[in-house]
């Protein structure tokens, strides 16, 4: 072990990220993000960049570029959450955290949306993700070359690695030493695990499967003004403690401090193109029932894998009659979900799986292709920790209702749950389109998502399910319950090196529109078996670096004659120069 590493281990949580003060900008006594000093821009002021969506992608991009002096406005369709007032320790009461507007889901294996994978409000889906923050493996970026399936990325793991390291410090991520993929350590020590996770880990060990604690974006020990996790178990309902990482607490405060405006309750309905120049000029959006237009030098769409394609497809013009940047019919294609069946096991002891964060332990031993398994690519194993409503759906998914369902639910405290994340492959016919006959409250046609599995996908899911079953058998579980589901969303506007087969280039720039960027998970050509949040942030962190190299300082000098922004935030001493 190097001396430098010894020192880092000793300091752990005391280390603060060098270029992100978010955790220190939060208030000690309340959870809401301080907004008193936030800049306000006029719609007519052509900001350097308007970002659509304040989730993992949009939040991180705003922070990075605001730090570089860019004038940034983020338009977010949902609210600017106040965890104290808006969030509850309650499953059914957390409905507002999800994208609940109508969407159509089709195909032979339709995907449940809403609560399962779609966020709303500042912080995006990371407000209600479990908290797992694994990196992708180096193999994920070249699955076509290695395994003959999916698609190669136009970038490599090593392009993202410095951004992974930086973000793991910013969130921060807690976990054991990680032996899989590109082996690495985490800045925070692993959290304690509950009895159920311990039993599952023991069962896995008997089968030669190694499970490790983490990696989770949950502070272990206080971090700035973010307190320690209290193990209340409601990670998926929004963290009232501010211990779990989401852009709301990890990047938005620093973005605001550096002059970004986060404009909530603004639903963007169209990215506007100047047909003459072929460049975008800003976005049309609805706020308080009134239609407005924000001018911008460039537009970054960060609405995630369904709303990003929907916005582009709904933004038609003479140049792009079938949707912005879609003359090659690629927008919306290759949208992906991960196969995420769950298996619950019953133990003699009470496990009370509602305690401790749902993400506890994880194995990536089955992540890479193993030809003996009979399919390409693999899956990871993770803990789930469902609360009563979620567990009831699990029991019903196994086929029990009535008295049998009630009996299983009265037994809730004896159960523990594992899930897999199967890497399902990108297929062009799995796509987001527009349901022209169904419109939202603004009269904009809603999205339709069609999803069907391939033969490889089915084999992968079946193998993973059997593995979980075996782990519980080895752990001494007395009964098991199995249910099928999906998790996460990526793809839909993928990056590539061929304009015929992708929407954006390796710098997230639309092939067909030079000042339009996609800055969210929809750019991913494949998804690995890792939860996507950290990789979305890392991609965008890299994008910000690429943009800053090209554009830093250029725009403000050019437009001294233009209208001023309405107010200026007070700058701290550190930024004034």
């Amino acid at each position: 072990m190097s001396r430098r590493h010894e020192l880092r281990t000793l300091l752990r949580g005391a280390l603060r990220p060098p270029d992100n003060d978010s955790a220190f900008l939060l208030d000690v006594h309340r959870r809401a993000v301080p907004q008193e000093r936030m800049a306000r821009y006029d719609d007519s002021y052509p900001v350097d960049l308007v970002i659509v969506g304040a989730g993992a992608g949009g939040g991180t991009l705003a922070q990075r570029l605001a730090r570089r002096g860019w004038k940034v406005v983020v338009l977010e369709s949902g609210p600017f959450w106040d965890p104290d007032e808006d969030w509850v320790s309650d499953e059914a009461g957390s409905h507002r955290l999800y994208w609940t507007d109508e969407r159509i889901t089709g195909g032979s294996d339709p995907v449940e949306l809403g609560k399962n994978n779609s966020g709303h409000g500042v912080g995006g889906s990371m407000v209600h993700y479990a908290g797992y923050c694994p990196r992708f493996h180096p193999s994920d970026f070249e699955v076509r070359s290695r395994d003959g399936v999916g698609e190669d990325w136009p970038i490599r793991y090593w392009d993202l690695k410095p951004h992974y390291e930086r973000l793991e410090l910013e969130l921060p991520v807690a976990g054991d030493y990680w032996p899989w993929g590109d082996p690495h350590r985490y800045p925070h020590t692993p959290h304690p695990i509950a009895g159920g996770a311990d039993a599952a880990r023991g069962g896995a060990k008997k089968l030669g499967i190694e499970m490790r604690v983490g990696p989770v974006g949950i502070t272990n020990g206080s971090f700035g003004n973010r307190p320690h996790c209290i193990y209340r178990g409601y990670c998926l309902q929004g963290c009232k403690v501010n211990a779990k990482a989401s852009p709301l607490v990890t990047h938005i405060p620093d973005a605001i401090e550096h002059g970004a405006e986060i404009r909530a309750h603004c639903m963007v309905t169209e990215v506007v193109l100047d047909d003459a120049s072929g460049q975008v000029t800003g976005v049309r959006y609805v706020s308080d029932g009134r239609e407005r237009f924000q001018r911008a030098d460039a537009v970054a769409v960060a609405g995630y894998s369904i709303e990003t394609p929907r916005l582009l497809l709904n933004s038609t013009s003479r140049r792009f009659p079938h949707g912005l940047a879609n003359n090659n019919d690629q927008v919306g294609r290759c949208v992906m979900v991960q196969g995420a069946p769950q298996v619950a096991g019953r133990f003699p002891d009470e496990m009370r799986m509602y305690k401790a964060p749902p993400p506890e332990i994880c194995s990536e031993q089955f992540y890479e292709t193993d030809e003996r398994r009979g399919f390409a690519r693999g899956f990871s194993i993770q803990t789930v920790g469902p609360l009563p409503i979620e567990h009831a759906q699990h029991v019903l998914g196994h086929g029990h209702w009535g008295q049998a369902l009630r009996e299983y639910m009265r037994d809730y405290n004896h159960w523990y749950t594992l899930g897999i994340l199967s890497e399902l492959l990108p297929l062009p016919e799995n796509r987001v389109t527009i349901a022209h006959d169904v419109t939202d409250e603004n009269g904009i046609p809603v999205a339709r998502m069609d999803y069907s599995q391939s033969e490889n996908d089915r084999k992968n899911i079946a193998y993973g399910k059997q593995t979980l079953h075996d782990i519980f058998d080895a752990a001494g579980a007395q009964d098991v319950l199995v249910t099928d589901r999906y998790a996460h969303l990526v793809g839909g506007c993928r990056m590539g090196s061929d304009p015929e087969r992708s929407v954006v280039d390796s710098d997230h720039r639309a092939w067909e529109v030079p000042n339009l960027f996609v800055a969210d998970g929809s750019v991913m050509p494949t998804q690995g078996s890792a939860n996507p949040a950290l990789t979305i942030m890392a991609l965008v962190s890299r994008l910000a670096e690429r943009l800053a190299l090209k554009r830093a300082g250029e725009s403000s000098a050019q437009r001294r004659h233009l209208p001023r922004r309405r107010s200026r935030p007070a700058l701290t001493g550190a930024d004034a120069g």
Partner: protein
Amino acid sequence: MAARDFRNAEHLPNLRPDQQPASPEELPRQRNGVTPQMHGRYPDYNVLDESEHWDEITRRLVFERVESTPPIRFFTDAEARTLGMFCDLVMAQDREPKIAVLNMVDAKLFEGQLDGFRYADMPEDRETWRRLALGLDAAARQHGAGDFAGAATDVQMRVVDALAKGELRGEVWDEMPPAKTWKVVSRAILSAFYSHPWAWSEIGFGGPAYPRGYARLGAGQRENWEGAPAFETDPVKDTEQRGVQGT
């Protein structure tokens, strides 16, 4: 009443020959607070006793579920009769006290609350529930009954079972796939039932824990305020150990 050892799993349906549980009447009656039908797996545990430790916003939300039952505003009387019976069967609520599941579903539909997706071959959620009412009656008639609510219990059970297995056919069910209908309506029913603190007490769930949190995470451990299951203490051994003399 036979004492059970819940370290064993013999009471669980998967492990029983007919896949059905033993009668819940073998459990004690709930002694503290209310559970649905007063089944007492944790007979002395009432999650509402802990509410002073919850944050104000959560407390208000949870107590509203206990203190005010929303009236039926979305369904017609006839629909409410059919669907009320249906919800009672799905949740095995065969007597009072009952959690008013249909009223909670009705409120959600009346307010137009959506879940964020609709299957391509399904109508919107409100229409799904109305057609379900028609479809249950149609299926009951196939068994010779006049309608679903008035049918014999075994006919009702067969109809619900066929819906859960996606096996209903004819009339409504030729246009609306039963398996997806079951997914849509069961999602709403489970969400209503297990959002209610009476159900939390029944299953021994610790409930909201902010700002207090949980500290005892290990197997077989519980916080000092969490409820003990029925039959955990053998009264004979207990009195001996504590030196308590019976009279």
